[in-house]
């Protein structure tokens, strides 16, 4: 399902790249992690379905953040140029927010089932799960934020920029905050630091991926706007790359270091968690190289309004980001020992 307007292939390629990358990341992550035989095993469908639903959730939320950041990147000084883009971006953000809300609710149901596969899955069982487990509450809060965004987004789609862009950015990012509670993002010791680090990781990744995806999907074929917006985004992306790498390595190494059963240098390659972490570091390296390519090889041409191969390169980058998202979902639940 896509927006049926003047179809530009860039939009489909970005969305397809994110989705396929996410799926590939989930499968790669599951392949890297060893799954032990489980008592009352919830089954393969849930083992694969859970991360797929969760990756969809993350990608939808990221798209909402990116589309909310778009007016900030484009600026407000030239409404005649930016308004056609925003007329697509605003309803698209509403649709993605609805997908976000739905996948968050679905994720609660899947988790409730996975936790108690031998109990009949009724609304009562799901409500009980939410009441008892913090992860359920986190997802519910995220779904509520997504619904709030749907409402604000509809207002924005009707009334244009009179609904402040900052409000939309704030609500979308606030909805991301409870998501780290659903993974083993933080540990018993150093809990405060690792939690804040994880929040920054999630916000940075969302702004980076969402910003790039929104920009390439909606602005790449408008050279005038791109020449102004891409340099701004490039600065944001550099900051996000640094932030995401530092916080990611900090959290990953902390998780391995605090584990009482395995010791560090070896556990990077012997545990599921370590292997998925290494795969994510490889993704970060690739993204840095791809980002550098856009920044130093393509950006000078774009600034001069010359045609470039930006869409192709950016689609590769977005796909790698999708892989990293899929891996992240598996990583947040991979057994450390």
């Amino acid at each position, binding site marked *: 399902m896509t927006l049926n307007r003047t179809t530009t292939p860039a939009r489909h390629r970005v969305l397809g790249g994110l989705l396929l990358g996410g799926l590939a990341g989930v499968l790669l992550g599951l392949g890297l992690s060893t799954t032990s035989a489980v008592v009352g095993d919830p089954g393969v469908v849930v083992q694969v379905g859970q991360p797929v639903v969760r990756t969809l959730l993350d990608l939808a939320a990221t798209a909402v953040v990116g589309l909310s950041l778009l007016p900030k990147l484009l600026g407000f000084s030239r409404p005649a140029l930016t308004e056609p883009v925003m007329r697509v971006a605003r309803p698209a953000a509403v649709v993605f927010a*609805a997908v976000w809300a739905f996948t968050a609710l679905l994720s609660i149901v899947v988790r409730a089932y996975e936790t108690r596969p031998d109990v009949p899955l009724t609304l009562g069982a799901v409500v009980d799960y939410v009441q008892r487990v913090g992860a359920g509450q986190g997802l519910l809060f995220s779904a509520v934020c997504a619904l709030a965004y*749907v409402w604000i987004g509809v207002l924005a789609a009707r009334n244009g920029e009179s609904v402040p862009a900052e409000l939309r950015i704030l609500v979308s990012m606030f909805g991301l*905050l409870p998501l780290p509670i659903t993974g083993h*993002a933080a540990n*018993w010791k150093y809990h405060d630091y690792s939690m804040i680090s994880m929040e920054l990781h999630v916000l940075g990744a969302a702004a980076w991926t969402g910003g790039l995806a929104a920009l390439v999907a909606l602005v790449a074929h408008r050279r005038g706007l791109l020449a102004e917006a891409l340099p701004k985004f490039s600065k944001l992306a550099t900051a996000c790359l640094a932030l995401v790498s530092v916080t990611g390595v900090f959290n990953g190494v902390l998780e391995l270091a605090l584990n009482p059963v395995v010791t560090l240098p070896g556990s990077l390659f012997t545990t599921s968690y370590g292997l998925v972490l290494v795969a994510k570091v490889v993704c970060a390296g690739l993204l840095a190289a791809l980002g550098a390519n856009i920044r130093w090889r393509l950006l000078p041409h774009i600034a001069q309004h010359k045609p470039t191969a930006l869409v192709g390169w950016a689609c590769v980058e977005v796909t790698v980001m999708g892989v990293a998202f899929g891996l992240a979902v598996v990583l947040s639940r991979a057994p450390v020992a």
Partner: protein
Amino acid sequence: MSRVVSLLLSCLVALTAAVLTAPAALAHNVLISSDPKDGAALETGPQSITLTFDQPVNAGERFNTISVLGPDGTHWEAAGEPTVRDNSVVFPVLPLGPAAEYTANYRVLSADGHPVSGQLKFTLTKAGTGTPAPTPAQAADAVAPAGDGGGVPIWVWIAGAALLLGGGVFFALRGGGGGKEDAGR
């Protein structure tokens, strides 16, 4: 613009810190020790199996389960909920029967809300007097009628939510945009 963004970010960090310092541990639990130990040889069957983790275990009906399998796939776990005390879970076990190797498969709900499962084996060297539990199939037959009357199946709720959200968004965007912003999904 950068000032606004940095202001937003600092607000978010402050809110994060305020909201999230309260909840408890969030990492996967790791099994530290067990009683009986994995691979132990015992003369008398244990009355219970105690699993101790590095972090608290979530207590709740059916969250933490165990199955103790003896020879020929017989079940030896006792009915009834395990006792959760901080970091450890105590599962009641029936008096064991023949001298053989027993396998305990457990699943507990980790502090971070993820199910964690594992296995430990121990050997009974002298035969006990116990008899195995009824097979899960028999037990399920006894329980099923009570469990089934529990309400509307969950997929009805899921379909309802999808319909409500999809329809709501479709009509909201259609109605306000004068039919121009068609973004149905």
